């Protein structure tokens, strides 16, 4: 992976000066590279990694497995596009294996999500079945420990 992208994935808030120092280049060059990555659509945006439970106590996240019938000419794409239009839906991926679309949904409570699945997702034409899994606890997200800091057991000073 591109060294710059690796660093931005670690922390998108590094300044161009810091990135330039770490990569052994100039801030101007970093700015140009980032602009190009954005223009090429490789960088889609910048977000924040939260401990969701502490940021919003009432938030519930569910992973939903959808089995669907692929449609003529467009396969799974049309159906995935329909699913992803809902604001409640955070992510949609086409999967290999025993189901087809993996959908992440957030809501205020279990009931809200259950109703969304029952009324919105399962009624879409071509959806054969849904299985809903609620997230109880997230341990690691995008390479970052959510529950605890990694504690340094080494001493202060060693030869």
């Amino acid at each position, binding site marked *: 992976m591109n060294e710059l992208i690796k660093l931005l994935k670690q922390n998108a808030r590094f300044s161009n000066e810091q990135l330039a120092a770490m990569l052994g280049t100039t801030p101007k060059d970093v700015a140009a590279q980032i602009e190009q990555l954005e223009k090429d659509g490789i960088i889609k945006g910048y977000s924040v990694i939260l401990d969701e439970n502490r940021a919003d106590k009432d938030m519930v996240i569910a992973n939903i497995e959808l089995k669907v019938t692929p449609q003529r000419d467009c396969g799974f794409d049309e159906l995935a596009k329909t699913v992803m239009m809902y604001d409640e839906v955070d992510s949609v991926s086409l999967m290999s294996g025993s189901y087809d679309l993996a959908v992440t949904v957030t809501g205020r409570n279990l009931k809200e999500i259950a109703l969304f699945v029952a009324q919105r997702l399962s009624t879409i034409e071509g959806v054969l079945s849904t299985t809903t899994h609620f997230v109880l606890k997230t341990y690691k997200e995008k390479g970052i420990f959510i529950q605890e800091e990694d504690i340094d057991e080494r001493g*202060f000073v060693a030869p």
Partner: protein
Amino acid sequence: MINYDTVLSSKIKEIKPSGIRKFFDLAATIDNVISLGVGEPDFQTPWAIRKAAIDTLEKKRIIYTANSGLADLRHEISHYIDKKLNVKYNPEHEIIVTVGGSEAIDISIRALINPGDEVLIVEPCFVCYAPIVELTGGVPISVTTRLEDNFKLTADALKAKITSKTKLLILPFPNNPTGAIMTKEDLEPIAEILRDTDIMVLSDEIYAELTYGRKHFSITQLDGMQERTILINGFSKAFAMTGWRLGYLAAPEPLVTQILKIHQYAIMSSPTVSQYAAVEALIHCEREVKNMVAEYNVRRRLLVDSFNKMGLECFNPEGAFYVFPCIKSTGMTSEEFCEELLNEQKVAVVPGNAFGESGEGFIRVSYAYSLKHLMEALKRIEIFIRNRKSAE
């Protein structure tokens, strides 16, 4: 009551405790210290190596190995040295697996030094060489390196210290604490001086895997030098295996035969579980090492750039995981700087003079820490420097 003062050997009483230790004790008394003082990797030992150790515990009897180490491991070490340096060592008679690089240093010095022999130690350096030399009755002689020479050993500095009593040169590159390396061109004039003599070289290459921008070069690769060199390396730094306590030495057979006697009587054999794990490290973990080096390199560049921007001249180290900025512009001694930084900003770094007098005026900063941790520490050091400047 027994008088312990008369019980203890006079030699051991003369040995000074490590200067680092004193600083560690001081840091331990202060809350919320953030440290850049540690000389061991922050990475976890690669999983494949740990798994090999677990499998060993499950399936093998954990008994002594051969004195010189598992045959498989010695073969892999021999193969690894050949692959990296294109230098050949016979795994049967020219390699000993030791308890860390430290043991290799100890038993090599003990096997070579008679009372009164002079040992040239390239300084600043890791803290163990001089005390071990003193225990054997040898005389440690510092050969200092300078910032102007990028902390490389020069032929002139070496020549100036050679006498008829000189027995051994300790050559620790890539260097702790400076991060300096010796290239082929740097080593050739050193080798040229040594070729006509019976002076041996102890080449401590424990940081050999951690170089940035160019491959490590060993003095054993130069004509006529393998026969007068004891090559030392280990698993601690390259494979993030400090606590596994495993290193090795490679040297000509007549030396290894004698050195092995000390290892046999003092140690018997190195930790068996670690030895099996180390085989895995040498065969399968090249990619993990490469990733660690890439990560260290990012941090290294950040630190060099940041210290120079703060006005603390920092030469560009090409090896190990330390930077060694000069703090003379602050008007403080190394120890004053470190103590005040610790008290004011709660950042622990190591005073350069802990690595020999020639380290005075410098501090050793380790980058075996996450970027997040390094940036917080840099922020605090910058405030510390800024406060000094505005007070002037």
